[in-house]
């Protein structure tokens, strides 16, 4: 009888310790998740900023300007343009 009591006591203590460590583990994981989420938010912010930057670099006026000035590009003379029609259905 006493042995059984002792055994159960041992089990009880084990369970209690397990609970504590599980709780601790849960909190640690929660903190990690929280951190990951805040990282995700930050990356999202960064993404937005980069999108904005890309938008600024890809402004049509800027591209047209570079094409004209730096690359010396210009619209071809209409007489030098050939249109090629693939197929009646596709051309639509």
């Amino acid at each position, binding site marked *: 009888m006493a042995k059984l009591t002792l055994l159960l006591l041992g089990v009880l203590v084990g369970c209690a310790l397990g609970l504590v460590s599980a709780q601790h583990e*849960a*909190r640690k994981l*929660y*903190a990690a998740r*929280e951190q990951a989420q805040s990282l995700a938010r930050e990356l999202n*912010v960064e993404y*937005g*900023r980069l*999108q*904005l930057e890309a*938008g*600024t670099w*890809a*402004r*049509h*006026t800027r591209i*047209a300007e570079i094409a004209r000035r730096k690359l010396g590009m210009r*619209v071809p*003379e*209409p*007489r*030098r*343009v*050939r*249109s090629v*029609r693939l197929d009646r259905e596709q*051309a639509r």
Partner: protein
Amino acid sequence: MSVATTSALVRLPVWRARLVLVLFLLGFAVVAGRSGYLQAVRTAFLQEKGEARYARVIEVPATRGRILDRNGQALAISTPVKSIWAMPAELEADRPQRAALAKALGMRSSTLKRRLAAGVERDFVYLKRQVPPETARRVAGLNLQGVFEQREYRRYYPGGEITAQLVGFTGVDDAGQEGMELAYQSRLAGTAGSRRVIKDRRGSLVEDIGAIRAAQDGHDLVLSIDGKIQTLAYGALKSAVRRHRAKAGAVIVVNAMSGEVLALVNVPSYNPNNRAKLAGGRLRNRALTDAFEPGSTLKPLTIALALEIGKVTPRTVVETDAGQLTIGNYTIRDAHPARAMSVTQVLQKSSNIGAAKIALGLPSEAMWDLFRRVGLGTAPQLGFPGEATGRLRHYRSWRPIEQATMAYGHGVSVSLVQLARAYTVFARDGELVPLSLVRGAGVVDGEKILSTETARAVRAMLEAAVQPEGTGPRARVVGWRVAGKTGTSHKLVNGSYAPDKYLSSFVGFAPVSAPRLVVAVMIDEPSAGEYYGGVVAAPVFAQVIMGALRLLGVPLDAPPEPLELPGETDHAREST
């Protein structure tokens, strides 16, 4: 004896022991009752109170949706910034610390003091809103009690002045104030969520309790605008407005198949990212909110009606009285006087007298009905705030002279968008297409207003109007057949026509063989000498429509005589 006395002393009355016992029991009962009360009855309240010591509700902010052009290019994006606020009562800072705070925020010490004083009763005051991240970091570095930062969103507009009036902008509270930002506020905004959490002593989160209400981010809004065409139209309009020293101008490009507005530009414009010195006039989306007397651009409608009810054919000859026609005490004049011209020539040479005479032969009810059905006098229902309805009086109140002048666009007022929409009738074989500022699914069905034959006949006349004998030869482009009508009208100032203030316009479409685009141009008060629509507005039309047709890859319907390309000759030589 002694024993007896002792026992007599010890032998206290029984009631005293009982009394003590009862008191103890009562005490226990009170304690048990109280604990029972707390545990069973007040438990919810107490738990709540306890939770309040460590649980916090934190707001999960929602991001405002982006505004994109039809190709996915961003026209408006939100990025988070910090706002600095303070609780004046809790602010513990001595003089040098306050000075450091003011310096970090980039404001004067006196301004800071005033802000703090203003917020004393409210317990909350913004020191500076929407500061850049470096500023926020510097303020946090001061480590002051009672100064906090808050995450907010700031809206950026990569399109800048090119899309300014169309996209609009948001206020400091991230709510739309102008343009599409205002029109689609509920769709863009999203709703903030919240979560209940347990925070530990150091302020870091320990765990979630209770339900999490997820933040609903705002939806993206995809406009019908094509960024490239928009840029092209803005450039063309801006240089024309500068060259003719005009007060303002607007251009609209409409896809005749789908009714989508591909470009909608206004000059003068402003930079929506920096609205410090913003004047009211620049904010207006003139193409939508301003109504003007369209002038000759309305003639094709009059003539279309005359053709439709069989009054005239394109070859019918109209007496034009050598350029002067008097009705009552009002005289109508022509810029290119002639004795008589065909109906086609009336449109081609933009004869006011010809149009007036044709109109006088039409029932006023039918004329009013056509004008109304192509959308004059009713808002175009684009969902844009402040759309002009224009003015179209009921036919019962028309006098004959008014019916005559209305034939060439006087006494009615329209917005540029209404005008462009009305011309879809000619571009679409008689169908009026509903316009849209949001990207749509493709070809839409229109409302049949005119017969196909009439629409095609007017189209042929409008093509004649841009030939060298017409009023708008400068609207022509190489490679595609275009058609359109010039308009020049005196501006109304205080109820009468100003002799020296003009409004030049051009509305047209291309390619004539299968119209894809309708373009309308309006230039307000050109004051560099030239003012005819054919000189001021038509070149802008040509520039815009040619660029747009090329960008959209519309097949040429009037290919110029091709040059022999060097590559082709080589190829030909090789193959022979």
